[in-house]
């Protein structure tokens, strides 16, 4: 997987066994669910709930994995670790990173949904 990319589309399609319809379905789901998951992480961080933070980050990480978004994946994974460690100080900026990169992935997905797959 191209670790610098926002979204590794070829890998994601591969993961869906080349089924574009399936990928589009999953993308739609992701757009729907990921904001909730990110918000849950932020809320847990704010009330200093490390278990809640780790769980929310883990859940988000799972769906990110399906989308093959490597940069978002890395910082979500980092957020999960920090949550497990109870390291709220470091978790705060990482959570911000997650939110930023999530927005990037959302944009990329919306492009594909609207404009079709790049050839």
């Amino acid at each position: 997987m191209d670790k610098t990319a926002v979204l590794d589309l070829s890998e994601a399609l591969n993961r869906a066994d080349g089924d574009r319809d399936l990928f589009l379905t999953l993308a739609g789901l992701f757009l729907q669910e990921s904001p909730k998951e990110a918000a849950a992480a932020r809320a847990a961080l704010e009330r200093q709930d490390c278990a809640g933070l780790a769980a929310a980050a883990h859940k988000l990480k799972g769906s990110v994995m399906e989308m093959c978004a490597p940069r978002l994946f890395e910082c979500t994974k980092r957020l999960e670790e920090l949550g497990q460690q109870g390291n709220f100080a470091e978790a705060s900026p990482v959570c911000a990173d997650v939110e930023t990169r999530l927005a990037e992935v959302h944009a990329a997905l919306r492009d594909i949904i609207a404009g079709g797959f790049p050839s």
Partner: protein
Amino acid sequence: MSSHAMSHIGQVPDSSPGIETPAATILLIEDEPVTRTSMAARLTRLGYRVLEAENGRAGLELARRERPDLLIVDWMMPEMDGLTFCDAIRRDPQLKSSQILLMTAHDTPAQIAEGLVRGADDFLSKSASKQEIIARVLAGLRTSRLVRKLETTGEELKSSMLLLEKKQAETEADLQTAAAFVQSLLPSPGSPVHGITLAWEYQPSLTLGGDLFDVMTIDEDHLGLYILDASGHGVAAALRSASLMTFLRAENMLQLLGSYNPEQVLFEANRRFPLSADGEYFTLWVGLLHLPTGSLSYASAGHPGALLSSAEHPSRWLTHASFPLGFDPSARFTRDRVSLKPADRLFLLSDGIYEVPSPSGELWGRDRFQEAIDAGKQTSLSATIASCFAAARGWQQAQHFPDDAAVVGIELTDYREDTFNG
């Protein structure tokens, strides 16, 4: 959910070519929707029937209802995580042998160890390739089929065993009833007529015995006696014996012959009971005791078990070589006679009482039996018989007799007062 979630059911990939088997059912328990949808789609594409649950509790309910062939459950879920779910499955008697694949984000050895302890059968990484998924799922399904087959066989075995035990119990009960009936036909000990004491002991080797005997009042002057031995063992021999016993009843003989003369009784029995198709036969000793005089006439068809024990003389066997019933259909049997005096004892016995082997294989034998009888002359009739059985048991160092053991004792206590002429 989008209609793109496929639900077609296809051939299970691992089925043998040409053999149609119904698609295996996989229950997928994952709280994260995107992951769940993705995994469900991939499994469905592989040809499986996929059921989905969002959490552990819903998963348990679905598992109980549908009894899937394989369960794939996520490690980390809120409320009930994967490990707790495994606990619950293993505790459930209906589900405990289910195959569980635990989905992990990354497998660490510590995670795997814990998963195995808590009840997972195998692990599947969320980033697994298609090949890996297929491999793990196939392995899980194969094991699941094997386990189910074993369980079914186990159940079938159990119910077969129960049925067998039930039948055995019924057969045993039937045998007990039959044995009780046969026992009721045997003479009651005590005194059949004045001047005679009767005692006997009978130990069939199985519930039903093939050796039978009787002491009957023929008329006011005569006592009829016999002992018979059916060759072979078990129920078949016992049934044949019962049949001969019926034939030998006093009423029957009186009707047939007008008397209970031993040689005539044997003649009739010999004609009536030939060798069976398997070569089974009877040996039989018949006696007729004239009560006023103590005169005993007797005849034997191959049965060597009659011993006369008198107060003054040494005991002697009342028999000579003769054919068992059925050996020679036209045979005639010779009648012998002996006089019984008061205190004389006549014993009728089956070979099962003296053909008992010691642990080293030596038979107790007729001579030692005779000694035991002679040793009991001063004791009562029943005590003498009891001591014979005790001695035989002591010889073989076992309680149970391998062959039917019977000893019948008749003691002449007195002649009938009014007819004795000295």
